[in-house]
């Protein structure tokens, strides 16, 4: 074994026990961490060699590590980093289909193909997310009403199953495995290659508009209309004000546009705003006030930005993030309740909202019609308790918490929120009977506690 590894010119990776290294990995907000064995294969053949993990450990794949939760962590187990599976294998300029390895980041795809007039149809908010990660979380962006989730643009994928075989899944070929893998949080196997259909872009610039709206109900109503009318639409909600003004916010819409005549001013880049976890509430209040007033000028703020900059612009990761979908009927009341609960837990959230359409690709996909609410919370001592109260409220309103960023959901809450869980477990029981794939998330949600 060792001799083979030695003669390998770039030995050191995934050819035997020696290539696993003990590492502590962190979630995006550095709120959760776990120590595990880690390897970083640089070609699909070596991913196959990494399964099963050494010492009978459980295994999970990890892409860009952009999850705020514990989906890419496996305490005491093993993790396969896919970052070195970064080759783009082919691109068909007629259909826009890109075949690439799973560790290719979406920022990489954007920078490579934007000059040729193509871009990922769904943009999950960070360029550091990988293709495999976006598939495993069935990511979505601020154009979900039009484009659906990320999985809708995946033509096929190849994954290394827990048994260590390379397997191809598509809508026509192994459809159950395909549906389970979209949004399956990496529990069906390690994705090594996928075909992604890119969307043609008419212009490399977007016209962005910010418009202040004075109350939460009006803001959500405007957001709902804007999502249908514009390419990108999202809303920032001011949670720091009190009284009647609470829930006012700024609506952002963006559409493809001609290049501006003058050089674009790039200092508008405060959206969706960096979150400073330990900032006192007074400063948050002042920041919110400033942002609201700037957008409250007649006509709001309008500017043109390069599309690349618009998409890659991301706020600093907060400590804890709660992403949930709330049904449209009760969203206003539910949002107010969530803010109240958070404030009583002395954790003032920073909140953004986006519309969500009907498309649901995978068995554990987040998507359902409604409003997707993102709450960025500071780390606080009472956090688990607070998160559970928020979860109960969301559950009562028939909402759903996103797994991709989640670190606190309980197993019974999870089971109540995801109606297709049983179908997912059936697929898992079939493909992974030995329970070789596990993550901290799967353990916490008791995803693998199925009865065959």
């Amino acid at each position, binding site marked *: 074994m060792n001799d083979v590894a*030695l003669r*390998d010119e770039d030995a*050191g990776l995934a050819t035997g026990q020696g290539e696993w290294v003990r590492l502590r990995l962190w979630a995006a907000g550095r709120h959760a961490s776990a120590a595990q064995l880690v390897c970083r294969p640089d070609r699909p053949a070596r991913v196959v060699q990494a399964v099963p993990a050494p010492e009978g450990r459980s295994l999970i794949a990890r892409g860009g590590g952009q999850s705020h939760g514990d989906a890419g962590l496996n305490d005491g187990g093993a993790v396969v980093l896919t970052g070195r599976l970064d080759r*783009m294998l*082919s691109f068909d300029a007629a259909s826009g289909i890109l075949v690439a390895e799973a560790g290719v980041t979406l920022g990489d795809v954007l920078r490579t193909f934007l000059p040729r007039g193509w871009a990922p149809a769904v943009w999950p908010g960070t360029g550091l997310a990988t293709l495999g990660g976006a598939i495993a979380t069935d990511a979505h962006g601020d154009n979900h009403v039009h484009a659906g989730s990320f999985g809708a643009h995946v033509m096929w994928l190849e994954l290394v199953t827990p048994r260590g075989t390379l397997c191809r899944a598509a809508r026509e070929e192994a459809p159950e495995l395909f549906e389970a893998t979209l949004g399956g949080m990496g529990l069906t196997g390690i994705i090594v290659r996928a075909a992604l259909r890119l969307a043609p872009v008419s212009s490399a610039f977007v016209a962005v508009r910010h418009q202040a709206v004075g109350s939460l109900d009006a803001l959500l109503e405007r957001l709902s209309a804007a999502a249908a009318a514009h390419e990108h639409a999202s809303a920032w909600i001011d949670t720091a004000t009190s009284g009647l003004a609470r829930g006012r916010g700024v609506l952002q819409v963006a559409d493809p546009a001609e290049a501006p005549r003058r050089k674009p001013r790039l200092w508008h880049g405060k959206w969706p705003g960096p979150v400073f976890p330990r900032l006192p509430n007074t400063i948050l209040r002042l920041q919110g006030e400033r942002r609201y007033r700037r957008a409250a000028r007649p006509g709001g703020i309008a500017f043109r930005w390069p599309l690349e900059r618009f998409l890659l612009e991301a706020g600093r990761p907060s400590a804890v993030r709660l992403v949930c979908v709330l049904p449209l009927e009760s969203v206003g009341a539910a949002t107010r309740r969530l803010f109240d609960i958070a404030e009583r837990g002395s954790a003032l959230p920073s909140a953004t909202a986006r519309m969500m359409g009907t498309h649901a690709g995978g068995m554990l996909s987040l998507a359902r019609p409604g409003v997707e609410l993102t709450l960025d919370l500071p780390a606080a001592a009472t956090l688990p308790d607070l998160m559970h109260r928020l979860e109960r409220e969301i559950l009562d309103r028939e909402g759903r918490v996103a797994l991709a960023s989640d670190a606190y959901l309980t197993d019974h809450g999870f089971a109540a929120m995801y109606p297709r869980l049983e179908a997912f477990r059936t697929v898992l029981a079939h493909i992974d009977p030995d329970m070789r794939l596990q993550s901290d998330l799967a353990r916490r949600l008791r995803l693998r506690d199925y009865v065959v």
Partner: protein
Amino acid sequence: MAGQTWLVLGASSALGRAFARRAAREGAQLLLAGRDTADLADMAADLRTRFNAEAEVLAFDAVSPAGHDALALRLGAVREPNILLAFAVMPLQAALERRPEQAAAVIGTNLAGAASVMLRLLPVLEEKPGARVVVIGSVAGDRGRPRNYVYGASKAGLHALVSGYRGRLHRAGVSVTLVKAGPFDSGMTFARTDLRGIATTEAVADSCWRAAQRRRNVIYSPTRWRWIMAAVRAIPEPLFKRLDL
């Protein structure tokens, strides 16, 4: 700059890949040589997809000199060839001390393999004024340390080899660049560091590319290792042997 042709020996290595991309971005044509030709085919597809670059796959194994003739033949057909030597193995020192016979394999690949292929390509390069050769050395070759001395010895030998090779080819108008690489984020170092505060492969590939374009003789990459190694070399031996560096 456009139209350069680069032969990358060890193109599956992290640095080989990063350098191939760096060169393809500048419009170069790539000849990817290594043992895992299936993987190299993927890499060639990547260069075609990303940069619309021409890329060709060649089978190459440093420790089987029989195949080196074919390489020389292929390179002879290129008008102005450039070569990057980016293959090496680095087992843990402790593993070598347990199985001393592996030490021969380290030197066989890093030094004897390099010498074999470089000498085989010598007659070709003599005919190609303007060619560039870049060899990846290591800061470990500047002074042997208990932690890594077999690998260090192979690289020290390589440094001497490159120095002589540079003089040999100077009259022929061929530049030979030695890049003494400090630890960077490759397959070799992955198991030994915790990935923090380590230079990226892309940065090292970029300095290799720029050094080749400027026909430098010896560079350190990342640059700070020039000063670090100057300090390490200056430590007197009676003190050095007591240190655990």
